[in-house]
């Protein structure tokens, strides 16, 4: 190729590189805006022209975690001096942190929602990937009658719009008292991710040469031993990639969480939008909540970058 390059081709290459940079900046701008708003003082979040250069603040994060109320009158100098630094930044914004009768700081709803998200996403991922790995091995190594139909059935359960599945699940959960419970959401997310995990893991299993286990069988291993000692270590990368995908799906899920939970087991995705009520929302606090919530996914995306294609195409395309 290089030998037949003309000057116009090189010129086009330069234009393309500039275009790529512009596109990248446009695509990242909304994410940058979330991240920067999370560190702005409230009065700079909604300005015209938009504020780009500013002194970063930690106050949105303090406000995110605490209950606050408007200050009716400014704090006395003694009050201000006695307050810890994290309370002072809230004073500076014209608000005060709500304390109960014993002077204990009142938490906002955010930390418990974040914790719920963690518990539900991690548990359902472990279950879905665990079951999915076994099942994928079964489909990969043994003849199963109607295998294609079964795999289609497994996949199609994931393709349904969540609301379609949520209506009967809501009624059933209400009958057995699983509404607004961690277990209820964990079961739903496990079922949702299981099909994906079976499909993806089957691809990874198909790539592990059968000869490895066959050799182990000849050496005196049982099929089970061969699976645990030979196949599982070989599949470790695939299992990790599948787990990250399942975690991200469960972490991001909104519709089921909106319908099935309202307080006790509510996860962050339905909670964060519910903070934008009527009136003027404090976008810095929303941005701080969004920023913390997006951070794990952003990190995982980098760890997962070589498997994204495969995961997003249900294992159809391998690189």
């Amino acid at each position: 190729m290089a030998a037949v390059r003309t000057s116009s081709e090189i010129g086009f290459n330069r234009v393309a590189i500039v275009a790529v940079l512009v596109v990248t900046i446009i695509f990242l701008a909304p994410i940058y805006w979330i991240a920067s708003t999370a560190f702005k003082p409230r009065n700079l979040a909604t300005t015209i022209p938009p504020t780009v250069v500013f002194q970063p603040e930690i106050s949105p994060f303090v406000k995110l975690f605490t209950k606050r109320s408007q200050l009716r009158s400014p704090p006395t100098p003694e009050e201000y001096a006695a307050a810890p630094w994290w309370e002072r930044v809230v004073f500076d914004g014209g608000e005060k942190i709500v304390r109960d009768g014993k002077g204990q700081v009142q938490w906002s709803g955010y930390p418990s929602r974040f914790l719920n998200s963690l518990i539900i996403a991690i548990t359902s991922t472990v279950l879905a990937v665990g079951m999915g790995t076994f099942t994928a091995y079964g489909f990969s190594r043994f003849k199963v009658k109607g295998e294609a139909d079964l795999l289609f059935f497994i996949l199609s359960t994931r393709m349904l719009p969540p609301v379609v599945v949520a209506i009967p699940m809501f009624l059933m959960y209400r009958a057995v008292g699983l509404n607004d419970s961690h277990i209820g959401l964990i079961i739903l997310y496990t079922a949702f991710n299981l099909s994906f995990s079976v499909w993806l893991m089957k691809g990874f299993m198909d790539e592990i040469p059968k000869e490895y286990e066959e050799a182990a069988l000849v050496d005196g291993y049982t099929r089970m031993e061969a699976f645990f000692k030979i196949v599982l270590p070989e599949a470790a990368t695939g299992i990790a990639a599948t787990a990250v995908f399942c975690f991200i799906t469960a972490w991001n899920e909104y519709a089921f969480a909106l319908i099935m939970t309202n307080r006790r087991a509510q996860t962050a995705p339905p909670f964060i939008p519910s903070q934008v009520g009527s009136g003027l929302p404090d976008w810095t606090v929303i941005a701080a909540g969004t920023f913390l919530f997006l951070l794990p996914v952003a990190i995982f995306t980098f760890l997962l970058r070589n498997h994204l294609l495969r995961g997003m195409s249900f294992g159809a395309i391998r690189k």
Partner: protein
Amino acid sequence: MATTMITTLDRSSRAAARGLSDISIRNLFIIPTVLFLIVFNIFPLIYSLGYSFTDFRASTNAPANFVGLQNYRDLLNDPYVWSNFAITAKYVIVSVAGQLLVGFGVAMLLNRDIPLKGLITTLLLLPMMLSMAVVGLFWKLLYDPSWGVINYALGLGNFEWLADPKMALYAVALTDIWMWSPFVMLLSLAGLSAVPKHLYEAAAIDRAGPFYTFFRITLPLVAPILMIAVIFRTMEAFKTFDLAYILTSQPTAELISIRLYKMAFQEWQTGRSCAMAYIVLIMVLAITNIYVKYLNKVKER
């Protein structure tokens, strides 16, 4: 030849007889998953099929009355519901076409030697990994007519994105295009890098123009993978709920999933919403079937 000797394990051999038989291991590995999916995916659907023939309302204690096909008849004769389907179709077409255009375009730009190509690709993929609901919410601020960054950057003054009935659906689609073009880009890049280099060299030797090269070499070879992206995105766009629900409450942007949600959980027309869910389900299964057939065809090649 040595491998074939090893792989054809005799069923009656000592190795195969040790521990659990292959058949029981297969059943042990597969049956629990299938059962789990039947209990938590298929059984609820059977349950709601039953309710779809009744006038049940989950908000009252009144017993459900059997009404036969009444719900289905009402829904299919309801112009309101038809308009929801029309809105959904418009949304699917606009957002998938946009994603195809942007995603494939960016892939064409990226398909060359570019410094930091790996990093740029990963950064571009970030939007699609993030939570639709949470990031969608933030787009409300970006679209804000008074202090939204978008209006400022484009010099649009106080242009209404989400509050204008004509514009709302396109604003939702635009955010969807931002989120999911990277998906089309990712698949297109895989397709583009699989095009054999010697074809381009041959075209260059034959002095073929860039258009000829694109339409006769690049496009036909990438088409199967683009098709996967289109079917997959069509399916997902058809299901869209989060983004549209969070961004706007305009009736002109009421997608079928939102109608279904309101019918079931705000108006509490449980029986009717079950019937509606079934209509949607049949449509989704039809698209999924096409998708899986196509996937298997591509995989075989």
